[in-house]
């Protein structure tokens, strides 16, 4: 059984007011897969994620969700950004509870469930703390716990660990992999970190920045997890990714 949604973009493009046009075209994402989007900053990765989340509407083309065209608010997706995922005026527990309020729980039940979720990620004692009093890693753990509490069929992550130190990032990656395994959700993640992409992904989608959004290459990473960063295969793949990004940078910067 797979809870994860399949996601297909068809002829997708987004025209921005400033003149930038992000032209993705077609892209298919399998149910319960782990896809990483990689590309230079500004190439359109966040735009694609926002469209998948239903937060932005494409200018042309459409999005198929389990084979069905969707418009308007995207059902069953949870989105995590690089930072500021938690509302700074709410405590940790309130930040989770607000998501549960809209899933049929009353205030008291939502608070109790939120406290339990915090305890599950080992942050019970920080329930009444505001985000400013927590570390970046704690905030991202809370954001992940909240996202999973929504039981999403699609988990969208926009550079979720980029602001964390290397050690915290490693631990968060493990936690994400576990969450992906147990939830069965489809994961679409943006990262700048080549190692992170190689450690986590089934597929790495390389996005060009000239023109914006074009899918340049797709790498299938058919290796068992946990993976060793220093394995010959990953080092080889890392070189290919690096070569792609260098080429992209050459084009963009007119080297």
């Amino acid at each position, binding site marked *: 059984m797979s809870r994860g949604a399949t996601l297909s973009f068809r002829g997708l493009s987004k025209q921005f007011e400033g003149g930038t046009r992000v032209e993705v075209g077609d892209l298919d994402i399998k149910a319960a897969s782990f896809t990483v989007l990689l590309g230079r900053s500004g190439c359109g990765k966040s735009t694609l994620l926002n469209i998948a989340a239903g937060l932005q509407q494409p200018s042309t083309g459409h999005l198929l969700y389990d084979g069905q065209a969707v418009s308007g*608010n995207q059902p069953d997706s949870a*989105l995590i*950004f690089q930072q*500021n995922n938690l*509302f700074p*005026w709410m405590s940790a527990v309130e930040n989770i509870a*607000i*998501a549960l309020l809209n899933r049929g729980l009353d205030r008291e039940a939502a608070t109790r469930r939120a406290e339990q979720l915090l305890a599950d990620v080992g942050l019970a004692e920080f329930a009444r703390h505001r985000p400013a009093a927590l570390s970046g890693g704690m905030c991202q753990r809370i954001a992940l716990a909240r996202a999973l509490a929504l039981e999403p069929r699609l988990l969208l992550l926009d550079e979720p660990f980029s602001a964390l130190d290397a050690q915290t990032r490693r631990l968060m990656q493990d936690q994400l992999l576990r969450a992906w395994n147990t939830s069965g959700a489809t994961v679409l993640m943006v990262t700048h970190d080549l190692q992170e992409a190689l450690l986590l992904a089934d597929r790495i989608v390389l996005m060009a920045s000239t023109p914006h959004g074009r899918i340049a290459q797709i790498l299938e990473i058919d290796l068992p997890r946990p993976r060793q960063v220093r394995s010959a295969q990953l080092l080889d793949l890392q070189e290919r990714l690096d070569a792609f990004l260098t080429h992209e940078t050459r084009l963009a910067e007119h080297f």
Partner: protein
Amino acid sequence: MNQAVLTLSRQPDARRAPRYLGALRDTLWFLLAWALLIGAWELAVQSGWLDGRVLPPPSVTLPYAFSGEAVVGFGQQRSGLLEALLVTLLRVSGGLLAGSLVALLLAVITTEVKLLRRLILPLVQTLAPISPVAWVPFTIAVIGIGGQAAVFVVFLAVLGTMTLSLVAALDAIDPQYLNIARNLRCTRQQIWLRVRLPAIAPSAMTSLRMAFFGAWMAVLAGEMAGINSGLGYMIIMAQQMYNMPLVMVGVMTIGVVGFVVDRLMLLLGRRLTGWAS
């Protein structure tokens, strides 16, 4: 090694102490500045540099302020300092509250309905810079003379600037918070009550303090225009009777109360929006 750990763990305390010391130091300087001015004033009058009849010295005005004799009018029109102050404070609060609530309403409407934003904001932008004093003749013509007129002048003084600052604060909310709220399936009402309003609370509190300054000035302008109660009336009457100590007491009361209210609002704001500091 141990020492490094110790130093690190002591840092927060070391940072905390100067904040209280700083506040204490500021207060001392504040008191010193006033003590110097009052002392210099007293000295200038005693030595004949200043005319004590035009600018009564502190040794006259301070006892006078607390003597219970600081009164204008007779019979029904009689009004003491404290009474005048309370009347004026009530008018300011009324106008400030009404002006802020209507401003909030306008800000919500112009955020929700783009067409109304296009129609309402240009009007507000043009009307906001008009000085409260300029509204007085208009107010007298429309509402007449009386307590409501002073409240209305305050209302007008607050409405424009408050609307503009609230709209600006709403526009400045990080769109990511709104995206997160939508992703969490918050309803429109929840987005207002639990995201937008808390997000703008700190800057709204600052705007309210600014608005209070405007309101505090506006109410006196309103009261000087033919109303027979309040601090503004008291000062005008005292001037007409050439009661210079009373003019002085009135002016000082305006300053001191304005300062105290502003500090109270600052403290209240920090209380309510502690997350932002």
